[in-house]
């Protein structure tokens, strides 16, 4: 039922696209970025398209679809804790260029005394404690239970922008501590797994906003990674479907065109239609779902909802 609604919606939305190379190069065109974004927003309504300020707008994207955003995504555990890292094993950091020839991005100074509670920051804590004012408002018969928040809870606004240089989506993050105050880049780096921390995570002004500093995952390797993930997904799906298709193919070929089964997966239909060529088991509009799965490996503690059975 949902699927059929989606099918008609997808038919309506999907224009003929030009040379799609996403499953051979891992790259997508702006048009494909929009399709994939529409699909993401459809599947996960916490993601939304957003417009950009007029001076930041890019003409090749629709005005109201400049970038994708989801807000207040919770993160309770730092990547360094999540993966049981000590945070110290990469201390041999004097070289600025790693073995692959990648220039190391800014060296995040991870606090070795990690996980000190957010609020207890040096001498400021005393200052700020002195400013507490229990008489700031009327709360005579205190019927309202006061809730304490988990001091480890952070919230992230996530943005996906299209990188014209690399022809891939690019992720930007803005983090807040449990008080809703901005995190410093060093603090945000704590939520990036160490495999990526030194290599592809940078501090950037978001190109689609006025003066907002973010942490960004540099897209220089996205295409290669996406290519691998896509081919793996294709492999997995083909293996799963192969038997179905092979056995059904003969049986169905005679009654092809008859609506023998309303519930039939449209992927199968596609596969049948294109059985001479590579079966199109991963569609370009699923690209961002795969991309988010990839991002999850970069920022494992940020709990955005990427878990869906997209295939």
């Amino acid at each position, binding site marked *: 039922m949902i699927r059929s609604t989606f099918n008609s919606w997808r038919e309506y939305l999907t224009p003929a696209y030009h040379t799609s190379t996403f499953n051979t190069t891992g790259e997508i065109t702006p048009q494909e970025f929009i399709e994939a974004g529409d699909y993401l927003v459809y599947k996960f*309504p*916490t993601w*939304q*398209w*957003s*417009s950009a*300020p007029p001076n930041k707008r890019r003409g090749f994207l629709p005005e*109201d679809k400049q970038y994708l*955003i989801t*807000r*207040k995504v919770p993160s309770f555990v730092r990547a360094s804790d999540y993966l049981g890292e000590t945070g110290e094993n990469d201390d041999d950091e004097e070289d600025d260029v790693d073995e692959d020839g990648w*220039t*190391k*991005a*800014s060296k995040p100074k991870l606090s070795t005394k990690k996980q000190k509670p957010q*609020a207890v*920051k040096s001498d*400021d804590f005393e*200052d*700020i*404690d*002195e*400013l*507490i*004012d*229990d*008489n*700031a*408002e*009327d*709360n*005579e018969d205190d019927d*309202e239970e*006061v*809730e*304490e*928040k*988990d*001091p480890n*809870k952070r*919230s992230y*606004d996530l943005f996906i922008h299209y990188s014209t240089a690399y022809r891939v989506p690019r992720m930007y993050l*803005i983090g*807040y*501590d*449990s*008080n*809703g*105050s*901005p995190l*410093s*880049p*060093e603090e945000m780096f704590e939520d990036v797994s160490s495999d990526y921390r030194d290599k592809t995570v*940078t*501090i950037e002004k978001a190109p689609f*906003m*006025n*003066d*907002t*500093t973010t942490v960004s995952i540099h897209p220089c390797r996205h295409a290669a990674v996406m290519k691998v993930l896509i081919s793996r997904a294709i492999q997995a799906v083909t293996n799963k479907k192969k038997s179905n298709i092979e056995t059904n193919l003969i049986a169905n070929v005679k009654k092809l065109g008859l609506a023998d089964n309303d519930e039939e997966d449209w992927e199968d239909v596609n596969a049948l239609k294109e059985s001479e060529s590579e079966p199109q088991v991963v569609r370009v509009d699923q690209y961002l779902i795969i991309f988010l799965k990839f991002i999850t490996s970069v920022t494992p503690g940020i709990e955005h909802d990427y878990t869906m059975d997209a295939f």
Partner: protein
Amino acid sequence: MSNILKFAPIGSFVDASFFQELSKLKLDEFKLDSTKKEIFATYDTIQLQTNEDPSISLSSDSFKVTNILPLFSKSSRVLPGFITNVNTIEEFKSLDKAKFIKDSANEIYKNIIDKKILQDPYLLNQFEVLSFADLKKFKFYYWIAFPSLYSQWDIIDKHDIDYFSIDNLELVESLGYKKNNVFLIKENQPKPLSSLHFSSSEVEIGFLDSSSIPDKPSRFLQNFLTALGLYGFKRVKVNIYRKIGSYQITLENIELDHTRVSGWERTAQGKLGPKLADLGSLIDPIKLSEQSV
């Protein structure tokens, strides 16, 4: 068993660009002027994470009151507010917080009594930022208040209703309500507050909730309920619209005291106190050059 309606308190997310803009304005425009300046915040309704407290977002755009940018989504809303940026930490400390929030609440009260809120429900809620910017250390002390006029309501009935359809959301917007989250419901249709009839003691309203906490609508609802109480309504049906789990509650007013004001945001530790944003590493030009490659 108590069936008193409880609200989810409103929090704030302030990004670094807000403080960067504040520093700029402090140096170039405000200087020692610590009078109230008009700003705005945005908040989201309906499109929320699960179990999300209601909250507002502030950024550098918050200062551009004459040029409010297109909102994040159809269900986003604008909240008017003011910033009072004082010049010293002592001033911040000694300022009478209770009076500060009451003065602000009193403006809302006047707009209720003058019935201005029925023409422009935008006036029902506002926020106040009290701040001190330590520009030498790039530290910002700030405390945000959402003045809330007290009224207490007993829930006498509650049941689930259908999600407010996009059609209806568009209808609300066609009433010119892009900025607002409350409206009347008549014959299952959203109607502007200006069509409120005072002859009855019962009324049905719609509320686009910015909370996804079970059974706790956002505190933004309270001022409207207090207003209805002040207008003499004894019983209110409220349709609380959420993406998941919209519901209707029927409320009876049991207490009304508009002079009792609350709404200072609490810290993560649950204390009535300000917050501190330390932007040293973000905007200190020396540190920034260290970080960039």
